[in-house]
């Protein structure tokens, strides 16, 4: 590919992606068990709509879509950062166990220590952080390889899953309250959840700006980055913390949603290249688009049942993951 063609692709997708996100968001406002047309939405937004419509839009769909945007953006940003600094095209907070770590910490908080449930995002972040550091240390031996990180992640994932199941059996009387969360979705998420996650999400998304330059230099290889005067180990550590924060925020509200952090950065990378100045923001937009669109489908196609969006995304993401394994000959 020539530079000209790639610049053109970067320009096009920088225009198309935000437009697509807006379309998908309005699609989400419109569709559901009750169809509400765009003019009716306009009426609601200008406080002239039917009370019934107003309730559906303002109390149910709008907060849910806003949460979906943040969750998708955070997961995709987390995935694209982890892929860069772990030098692993398959790194995804869901696959390598980072989300499972956040999930376990969240379960412990909700089930065993419910009086501290307001600390859920922080607990999820710590769970994600500790897990990613453990995986990184396990896989580290004079550098890491994609295979080692995946294998360490699989083992950690299994262990964390077992602990989570164990807790749920022991505290089976309290599990009912966390089941919707556990399924990984946006069912029943409202303004309360939005207000609860938004500060963490927005801060971590803004922090991503500072990760762009170091992440780009790390792409040159550790030796080259060090020769350019970079403190590579420190930068990688800080970026892993940021990626854990992003994954933890998403998990604390939406539970375990996998594959967004894998699929989206890959597609964006094919279009705009590896430069994080483009990859990171466009991954966020892409992740937000995917989660909001999938959630709209998950709640409207199977009406009256609301399918958790995590299930739908796993059905889409797992085949994509296998396709990547085949195409890139990683294992």
């Amino acid at each position, binding site marked *: 590919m020539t530079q000209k063609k790639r610049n053109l692709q970067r320009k096009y997708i920088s225009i198309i992606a935000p437009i697509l996100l807006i379309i998908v968001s309005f699609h989400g406002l419109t569709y559901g068990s009750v169809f509400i047309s765009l003019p009716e939405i306009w009426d609601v937004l200008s406080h002239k709509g039917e009370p019934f419509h107003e309730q559906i839009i303002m109390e149910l769909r709008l907060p849910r879509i806003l949460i979906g945007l943040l969750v998708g953006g955070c997961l995709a940003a987390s995935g694209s950062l982890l892929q860069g600094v772990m030098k692993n095209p398959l790194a995804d907070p869901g696959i390598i166990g980072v989300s499972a770590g956040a999930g376990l910490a969240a379960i412990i908080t909700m089930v065993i220590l419910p009086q501290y449930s307001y600390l859920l995002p922080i607990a999820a972040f710590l769970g994600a952080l500790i897990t990613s550091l453990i995986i990184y240390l396990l896989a580290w031996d004079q550098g890491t390889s994609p295979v080692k990180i995946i294998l360490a992640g699989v083992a950690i994932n299994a262990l964390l899953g077992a602990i989570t199941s164990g807790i749920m059996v022991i505290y089976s009387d309290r599990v009912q309250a966390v089941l919707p969360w556990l399924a990984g979705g946006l069912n029943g998420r409202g303004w309360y959840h939005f207000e609860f996650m938004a500060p963490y999400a927005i801060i971590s998304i803004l922090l991503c700006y500072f990760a762009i330059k170091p992440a*780009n230099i790390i792409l040159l290889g550790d030796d080259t980055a060090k*020769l*350019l005067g970079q403190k590579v180990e420190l930068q990688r550590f800080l970026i892993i913390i940021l990626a854990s924060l992003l994954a933890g925020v998403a998990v604390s509200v939406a539970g375990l949603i996998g594959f967004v952090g894998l699929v989206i950065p890959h597609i964006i990378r094919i279009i705009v290249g590896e430069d994080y100045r483009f990859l990171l923001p466009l991954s966020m937009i892409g992740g937000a688009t995917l989660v909001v669109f999938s959630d709209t489908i998950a709640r409207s196609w199977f009406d009256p049942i609301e399918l958790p969006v995590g299930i739908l995304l796993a059905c889409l993401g797992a085949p994509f993951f296998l396709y990547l394994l085949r195409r890139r000959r990683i294992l």
Partner: protein
Amino acid sequence: MMAAIQTDQITLNLGAFQLHDISLAIPKGKITTIVGPNGSGKSTLLKVITRLLTADHGSVYVQNKKTTTYKAKEYAQTVSMLPQSKDHLPNLTARELITFGRSPYKSLLNNQITTEDEAIINQAMQMTNTAKHENRLFYSLSGGEQQKVRIAMALAQKTDILLLDEPTTYLDMAHQLDVMELLYHINSKYNITVVMVLHDLQQAATYSHHLIAMKRGEVVDSGTPKFLLTAGFLRKVYEINARVLYEEDYPLIIPKINIKER
């Protein structure tokens, strides 16, 4: 002799690669080449000098200052290096890659490329004759052109000292000579101290002012190429029997071969 780099009794044991008590001086403003058989510790020595590896014992001085006392960015403004070209480089254009050479002068909050940076990048491309490729993707360039772009990136660091680990390996002969001519030009015109590891002794002798020979982690010989490159030297360092002839000042190494006896 003014020394750009001095090492004082460096010892390092990495298992497969070892350095034993290496004390040497690399002259300022000259081209110095480190030669020696595979596994003799040449690359390891370069990595210790550039702080990619830390010696178990001993110290390195660059411009009479202990390397461990330099700050990371300050050091990258003093010494640049081309590692062996096995690092995966991302899919960037030549110019984007060369721009990374300015990183040692940037910080987290102050990372804009100024007109001064642009001028330095342009100069680095002009010195290496890579300006014509600036908008081409690195991977679409030939091996020789890729190497020149990497050299341009190191030059954009504006260092007094440039180290290169086997800069001509994997290149065909024309590109090898091209790179060697370029390094000679960089040294003579801009007075940059060049230190490299090479396998081709004939090229090393032709283009260097100073040779250092290593074997099994030790420095076994050093001096000017004419003085150093003899049949005795080849027997001692490489354990081969060969004659050294000169054709128009270019050394020819004629090994004694035993095809018939097999």
